[in-house]
């Protein structure tokens, strides 16, 4: 059973959907099956956003993430809402955005995504830092497919996004 469930959630404008698209595109290039469901409030910025990504070597039946192997929390509200279903997975969170974390049962990894992106001078690319950290935890997808996917989805900012992605991968 190779099915992996990844949940990325935060608020509008953080690139939650873009991160999911790149992950799905890279999986497809890798020859895997991928599916993503996106849900969000009606606001375009500042509202709640969630990307549910499923990656598998086989065809995917249910596209719903029920027990994420990886949960990436990009806001306190997202963390509060989904940490309960993530107890058996790895929770990646940005400590600048998620200040209160709960019981120590799941594996937590603090990723200073916002700070790392600001340090590189590209604060908008915090999602790419997180993506690097997700890939490091997930495996399954080659570096090359990931880079091709970043170039395909964000052709204008490929170089900058790759820098942010690598910073996340190294953490």
């Amino acid at each position, binding site marked *: 059973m190779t099915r992996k469930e990844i949940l990325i959630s935060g608020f509008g404008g953080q690139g939650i959907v873009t991160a999911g698209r790149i992950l*799905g595109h890279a999986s497809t*290039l890798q020859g*895997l099956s*991928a*599916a*993503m*469901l996106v849900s969000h409030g009606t606001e375009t910025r500042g509202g709640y956003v969630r990307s549910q990504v499923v990656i598998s070597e086989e065809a995917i039946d*249910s*596209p719903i993430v029920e027990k994420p192997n990886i949960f990436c929390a990009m806001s306190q509200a997202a963390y509060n809402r989904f940490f309960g279903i993530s107890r058996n997975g790895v929770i990646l969170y940005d400590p600048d955005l998620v200040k209160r974390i709960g019981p120590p049962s799941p594996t937590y990894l603090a990723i200073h995504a916002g700070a790392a992106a600001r340090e590189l001078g590209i604060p908008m690319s915090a999602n790419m830092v997180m993506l690097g950290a997700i890939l490091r935890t997930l495996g399954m997808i080659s570096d090359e497919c990931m880079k091709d996917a970043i170039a395909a989805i964000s052709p204008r900012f490929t170089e900058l996004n790759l820098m942010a992605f690598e910073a996340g991968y190294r953490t």
Partner: protein
Amino acid sequence: MRKLFETGNAAITEGAVAAGCNLFAGYPITPATEIAENMSRRLPQTGGFYVQAEDETASLHICIGGALGGLKAMTATSGPGYVLFADPYGWAIGSEIPLVIVNSQRVGPISGITGAPGQGEFYLSRYPTHGGNFETIVLAPNSVQEAFSMTVEAFYLAERFRTPVTLLADQLVTDGWASLSLPENETELNEMGLKVVPRSIHPGPIFYPPTDEIDVPPVVLGQNTGGACSDWTPTEEGYDTEDIEDQMKHANRLIGKILSHRDLIDRHESIYMDDDPEIVLVSYGSPSRVIGSAVKRAREAGMSVGCIRLKSLWPFQDKLFERRAVYLAVELNVDGQLVREVARASRGEVHFLGKCGELPRVSELIEAVDCLCDGCELKSKKWETVVW
């Protein structure tokens, strides 16, 4: 083959282009707006026309006009727009005008919630207009890849049966993203089992033969002996009539051409049905994805369960439910629509599990199956559902 990671909306657009669609008229509505956006980019590239209509009624009238001018036309909407098609939909059925209508269902009634999936138009797609005396053809994809292939098939059936075909999708299918393989030429398209029927023109004079035959080319105004294609009952030659005998002949043709060639339309998928399972889950569209996972897990746990997924909804495939079993219809509504047809067509015990605006979970379905295995009744309190 091109490999992409795309939405169902993008897949429908590419399916239409692959099928030779050269007119799209539409009015934006979540979750189908992206189809209009994509069409406005793609059709000018392929020599087609994109028309931004002032509302949904106009959209379908424009499609009818284009089809009568020899174009392969499509429109796309959600429930609140689909209901506005009632008038022109009937015209397209009655005058036998081929075109494709996409409905990405969202939760209702009326405007409901834009970003939540629904399955409220199961019966509306059977009776999309007034007056009776007709059958409809409705296909239902459950994935991004099927959104592509079924759009091609919808055009294929529309041309061969000379009738509007509805692609009844839902918000999760059209807004959902997935890996998508796109053929790069007609050979690759054919290798996927898909065919394109080019538009042909009826030479006249018998536009409406009093038979069940299909593959009768449609009227193209100005290109033949002059079928009127008005919204009145036509004579065989396509002129308006008030003769009851003509009316009977025409009504029988509208029904007979579909029912007597239904082998070309009927589509379904059976999983774990070979060993006559005691419990059979029935669904269409995105709930069937979760059911696929649930049935596999329930089987591993030793439960006698299988599932039938309808890929074509209308005409309804009664023969799939001839076997005596306990049927559980799973739908994205809590009033129960598909379940009523299953109850009518089947000889077994029929249950219903409905969710409103979100998919049931795998665990929830397994619990329901487990309960039915024990001979329990599904209780509305326990399941947050209505038992039909």
